[in-house]
């Protein structure tokens, strides 16, 4: 790709790339992201490559290895364009048939398309599959038409045209006014208005100024940002360059967690390609604007995703936050004005410039505009990445798109907002998902993690899990967070192991209040949310643990018992074979029994027992009590 020296050049190259693609009328896109890769998508793509060649279709069909197509549960996912036929879990053996029928002709291989779980109807087109049908994929849809390693793919869909527009004549103030007018709010957690932050950095005294992409994605259980960085890094980069121009920064940073090697690689590649094309460097597109970016690999610390901590990390220090009265937008990296936004926030910027403020405001709700990407995981049928307009009810995300809870289990709660968020019970399923409604309900939007929990998930254990995570990740700089979390963890450990006392719940509430009021940064201030929200909605579960020494969801090890149902046991002996503790004893030829004093509650017998027998049962309550009750 040659160096582009004017906006005109960019327009020409965009048209060229688009018409180049049209030369091959059909494309097969195979998801090559981590999720699908583990399901064998690399071999699948290789098979397509050679089979297309073998059947002499190289002139009319192109193969694209893309980033996440969303429907991870059914990976590897492949989509044939322009018909948008979606094949799920195809294997290399299926390839010759697909190439012959669908790529060579116009036939569909029925057995590989989505089958509706209720009606049994086969749905071939992406737009008909419920998982996709109920979404609004403005940002994610690009993944199907982009190979991250190829900037031409991005040019072909009008990539960098927003930057072109801006440099060709939208003034800096006008760009900021547009972002303000769009009411775009930060996607990294807090939902702060983006335009206002840009304005603050622009107006702050001090040079140079910096713009930064927050790709730390610290929420364990979320992977939206990874998908953007792996799938369409140019989209994020374009947003960042536009931001740099408007704010008056000539240098930018990508802060990306080291756990995402592919994201790091793809962003690095995108930066190099953009530099070669003259989209980074001196005098971009002949506009006189200079801008370049560096990557900083996050070394793994949840708190370093916080703005001031992240900037400390870039400076080469311990990634600890500092008090909030100094805004990083005014005094950030090396005390210079620095504007930090989340990956998804930056990715929205080109959309707004290209489609206009009114268009963007028309999506979502009055105060939360645009779409939001969620990572829908946990106990839900269709796990994956989903993008929906703000304001859509939770129920629609979990049931219409997610297909509900697997194995006919009962929905219990959904957790949003990661370790700073909370759980929402069934009674709140009709809540519209936007920044303010979630906050009112005691949770928060966070970066977009959405973890579905069913009747087998223990709410006290969930709270304990988050507090353990946060206690480990607390930087220790302020006492309320460091000591408060430790005490909360002790109490929760007691409760989940059967040593809970009356008054524990109240003590947890008191500690929560202290943390909220006295912690230095948002980690500590929001850390009580998982505890407060579980107490608020599931107090009875806490009480069952404390008073009856019983875990209703049968999760907390010390409060459950494994037994063998004599009636159901067929004497296969798998439980005994799998027990690591020698706790399964044979009574007679066909009967086995678990010795409760030896049992370590690992659940090996429970998983080993064939499903058709289901003779090993898990009961709520300690063994002694079970013995008494029996």
């Amino acid at each position, binding site marked *: 790709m040659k160096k582009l020296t004017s906006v005109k050049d960019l327009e020409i190259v965009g048209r060229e790339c688009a018409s180049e693609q049209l030369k091959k009328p059909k494309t097969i896109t195979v998801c090559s992201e981590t999720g699908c890769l583990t399901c064998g998508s690399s071999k699948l793509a290789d098979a397509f490559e050679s089979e297309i060649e073998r059947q002499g279709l190289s002139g009319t069909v192109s193969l694209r290895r893309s980033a996440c197509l969303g429907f991870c549960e059914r990976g590897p996912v492949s989509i044939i364009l322009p018909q948008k036929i979606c094949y799920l879990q195809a294997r290399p053996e299926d390839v010759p048939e697909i190439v012959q029928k669908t790529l060579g002709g116009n036939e569909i291989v029925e057995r590989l398309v989505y089958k509706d779980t209720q009606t049994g109807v086969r749905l071939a087109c992406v737009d008909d599959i419920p998982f996709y049908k109920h979404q609004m994929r403005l940002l994610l849809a690009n993944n199907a038409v982009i190979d991250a390693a190829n900037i031409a793919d991005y040019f072909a869909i009008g990539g960098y045209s927003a930057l072109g527009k801006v440099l060709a004549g939208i003034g800096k103030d006008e760009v900021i006014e547009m972002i303000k007018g769009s009411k775009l709010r930060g996607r990294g957690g807090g939902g702060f208005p983006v335009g206002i932050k840009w304005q603050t950095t622009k107006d702050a005294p001090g040079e140079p100024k910096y713009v930064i992409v927050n790709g730390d994605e610290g*929420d*364990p259980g*979320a992977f939206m940002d990874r998908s953007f960085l792996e799938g369409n890094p140019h989209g994020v980069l374009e947003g960042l360059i536009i931001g740099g121009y408007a704010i008056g920064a000539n240098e930018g940073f990508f802060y990306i967690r080291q756990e995402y090697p592919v994201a790091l690689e793809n962003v690095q590649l995108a930066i190099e390609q953009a530099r070669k094309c003259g989209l980074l460097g001196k005098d971009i597109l002949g506009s006189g604007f200079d801008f370049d970016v560096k990557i900083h690999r996050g070394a793994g610390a949840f708190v370093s995703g916080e703005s001031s901590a992240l900037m400390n990390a870039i400076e080469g*220090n311990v990634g600890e936050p500092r008090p909030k009265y100094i805004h990083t937008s005014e005094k950030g990296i090396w005390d210079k004005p620095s504007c930090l936004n989340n990956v998804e926030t930056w990715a929205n910027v080109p959309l707004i410039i290209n489609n206009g403020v009114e268009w963007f405001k028309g999506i979502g709700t009055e105060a939360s505009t645009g779409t939001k990407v969620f990572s829908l995981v*946990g106990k839900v049928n269709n796990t994956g990445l989903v993008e929906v307009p703000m304001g859509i009810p939770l129920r629609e995300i979990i049931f219409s798109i997610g297909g509900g809870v697997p194995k006919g289990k009962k929905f219990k709660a959904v957790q949003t907002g990661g370790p700073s968020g909370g759980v929402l019970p069934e009674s709140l399923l009709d809540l519209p998902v936007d920044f303010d409604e979630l906050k009112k309900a005691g949770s928060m939007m966070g970066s977009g993690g959405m973890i579905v929990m069913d009747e087998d998930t223990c709410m006290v254990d969930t709270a304990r899990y988050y507090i353990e*995570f946060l206690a480990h990740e607390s930087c220790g700089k302020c006492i309320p967070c460091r000591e408060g979390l430790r005490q909360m963890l002790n109490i929760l450990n007691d409760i989940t192991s059967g040593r809970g006392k009356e008054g524990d719940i109240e003590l947890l509430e008191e500690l929560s209040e202290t943390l909220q009021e006295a912690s230095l940064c948002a980690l500590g201030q929001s850390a009580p949310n998982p505890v407060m929200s579980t107490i608020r909605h599931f107090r009875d579960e806490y009480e069952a643990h404390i008073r009856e020494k019983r875990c209703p969801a049968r999760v907390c090890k010390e409060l459950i018992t494994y037994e063998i149902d004599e009636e159901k046991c067929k004497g296969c002996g798998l439980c005994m074979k799998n027990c690591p503790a020698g706790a399964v004893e044979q009574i007679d030829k066909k009967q086995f029994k678990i010795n409760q004093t030896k049992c370590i509650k690992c659940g090996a017998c429970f998983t080993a027992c064939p499903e058709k027998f289901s003779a090993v049962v898990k009961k709520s309550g300690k063994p002694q009590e079970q013995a008494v009750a029996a």
Partner: protein
Amino acid sequence: MNYSASEEEAGLPDKIALERDVAARLKGFDNHRRNLIPILQDIQDHFLYLAPEAILMVAEHIGIGASEVYGVATFYNQFRFHPPGRHPIKVCLGTACHVRGGDIILENFERKLGISDGETTTDREFSIERVACVGCCALAPVAVVDENIQGHMAPSKVEGIVLGYKIERDRIDRERENEPGEPA
């Protein structure tokens, strides 16, 4: 954290070679403070952990105390101060993996290998580490073995993975015995 195999046995680079290599890597970075974390990452990418000698050299390069380098390095989860096993096993305990039984997978690995999270087996073959989310939450529970992501983990899969390596190791050992002329 404990590991008991001697250094020679595990084939670690000797000190002089290590110092020479670290010195060569340091040449790629100027002595600005902002390079501290990238340097440590570069060293760990290469040697898989931060040896005490390496830390001293980094401190000297940047012109700060070794204690300060340790202060930064120990703050971040990424840095290791002991060499990992030849086949590092990372078990995800992020939220999605937690609700789908990630801790049972961890326990199974621990029991199977006879070591705890953060430890390395005495023959330095395996080490176990818990991590918070590798970004494949849709495939929970997840483990990463030798950089390969294993989705939908189950106790039986743990058994299979460990057994697979044992078989491979036995095969290599047998081949070594059969070819006495080969250098080790």
